[in-house]
């Protein structure tokens, strides 16, 4: 059977999906800048990350309104309904990831002009940033392609960022007794936490991809019951 009707609705739905996934591109840019801000202690760039979050929030409101409009006017069902519901989840995660970038940027001025940084910790933060960014990009690709396997691979990716987060914790513990260095290390732990949460948001978007494709929603990983988690595909 070929698609022969409701083309206007299908166009609207596709446009809404593009807008939501475009939000992930915005997050990707913001994330890259936020990490650069932290690593280089760039206060100017931090201000840009914070102000640019208005664009992400605006995208959230735009997609949210579009979802409401589609539900009210078009009453989507079946795969279309699941797609609309998933878009709403995706854009919420986009908004939260944008907020995490802002949280990171806001920590930069708190650390002072020339903080007593630790290169190993900064390298770790940079690696976490790259990993988080890769997960954001992969979550977008998986949703666009309706690729459940690629979506499930985000769990493996997330294990990487979790490991780097634990490494940050240990490096912070080893930072020494100097109060200024310890304060800076605490800020880096908060940055690492923001990046780890962005990874989790990307996994959640992957779960929405699986929901759209299969019609069944299940968490890839159940934090409260890790023993019930299905095996993840080999890398």
């Amino acid at each position: 059977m070929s698609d022969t009707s409701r083309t206007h609705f299908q166009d609207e739905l596709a446009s809404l999906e593009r807008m939501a996934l475009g939000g992930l591109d915005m997050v990707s840019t913001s994330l890259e800048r936020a990490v650069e801000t932290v690593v280089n202690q760039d206060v100017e760039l931090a201000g840009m990350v914070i102000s640019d979050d208005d664009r992400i929030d605006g995208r959230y409101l735009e997609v949210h309104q579009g979802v409401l409009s589609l539900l009210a006017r078009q009453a989507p069902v079946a795969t279309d309904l699941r797609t609309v519901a998933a878009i709403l989840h995706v854009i919420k995660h986009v908004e939260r990831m944008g907020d995490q970038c802002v949280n990171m940027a806001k920590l930069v001025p708190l650390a002072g002009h020339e903080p007593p940084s630790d290169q190993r910790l900064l390298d770790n933060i940079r690696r976490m940033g790259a990993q988080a960014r890769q997960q954001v990009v992969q979550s977008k690709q998986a949703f666009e392609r309706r690729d459940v396997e690629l979506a499930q691979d985000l769990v493996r990716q997330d294990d990487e960022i979790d490991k780097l987060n634990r490494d940050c914790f240990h490096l912070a513990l080893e930072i020494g007794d100097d109060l200024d260095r310890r304060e800076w290390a605490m800020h880096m732990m908060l940055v690492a936490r923001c990046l780890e949460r962005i990874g989790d948001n990307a996994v959640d978007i992957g779960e929405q991809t699986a929901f759209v494709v299969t019609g069944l929603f299940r968490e890839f990983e159940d934090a409260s019951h890790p023993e019930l988690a299905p095996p993840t595909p080999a890398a």
Partner: protein
Amino acid sequence: MTEPRDPQRENAEREHPIPSLHTREPSEAAPGGEAAQHQPAREAIFQLAGVSVSYGDKPAVRDITFDIGNNEITALIGPSGCGKSTLIRCLNRMNDLIPSATVSGRLLYHGEDLYAKEVDAVEVRKRIGMVFQKPNPFPKSIYDNIAFGPRVLGMKGSMDDIVERALTRAAVWDEVKDRLKTNAFGMSGGQQQRLCIARCLAVEPDVILMDEPCSALDPISTGKIEDLMLELEKEYSIVIVTHNMQQAARVSDKTAFFTVELDADQKNRTGRVVEFDDTEKIFTNPGDARTEAYVTGKVG
């Protein structure tokens, strides 16, 4: 936990127990024989197995098999010409009135063969009422519209009570109680349709068949009919044919999706059931790509 249902006991406790459809003693081969081996695993008011309907030598619907549950609303959906109305008319033997119509397969009602020789078609249509697309009140007063069926059937009890009960159940009593003797044609379309439902209820059916009951009504009247269906579901089983996908999604518990198939020489169009499942499943995650395409409006 709820106790398992006992249909026989429930029937005995009903205000109006479901009577036998027979006007004569059943033949040995009917309910006690083959049919008894096909008792439903769960309570089903209708059991359809391989039901086909033809008009002359042209098959209209073919090989329909599913159960219709008691005290449920079952929606029949599908494109025009797929045999929904043909099938719903089989459920109370309305097709008997069409000389060229033939029904084959097994169609059980409360476990009895609806098309057995000893079954009285008039009794069938009393137990299984029907409401049509266009409201069709008789050119009589509101009161007489309701009283007509009970009078013909010689129902006992106060006729005033019967009329009030039927109109109340159909959620139209408050709107007409002060003008029962006025002509039913003076009612609005939505009121006329609820009057027709009341007329159906007055003869104490246990199934109500509705063939696009809201297609001629405005949204307010449609909403009232839908609310009424959900109320009536507690006491009656309802089968509805509708072209309104959202109506099927809103009111029904189960949905059967029909489609049209062309035969090998591309001459005859025959209706088939593609999918029968919980309505929620049909409208959120249908199992068949054809159902998906239809409910999402990609094909009509």
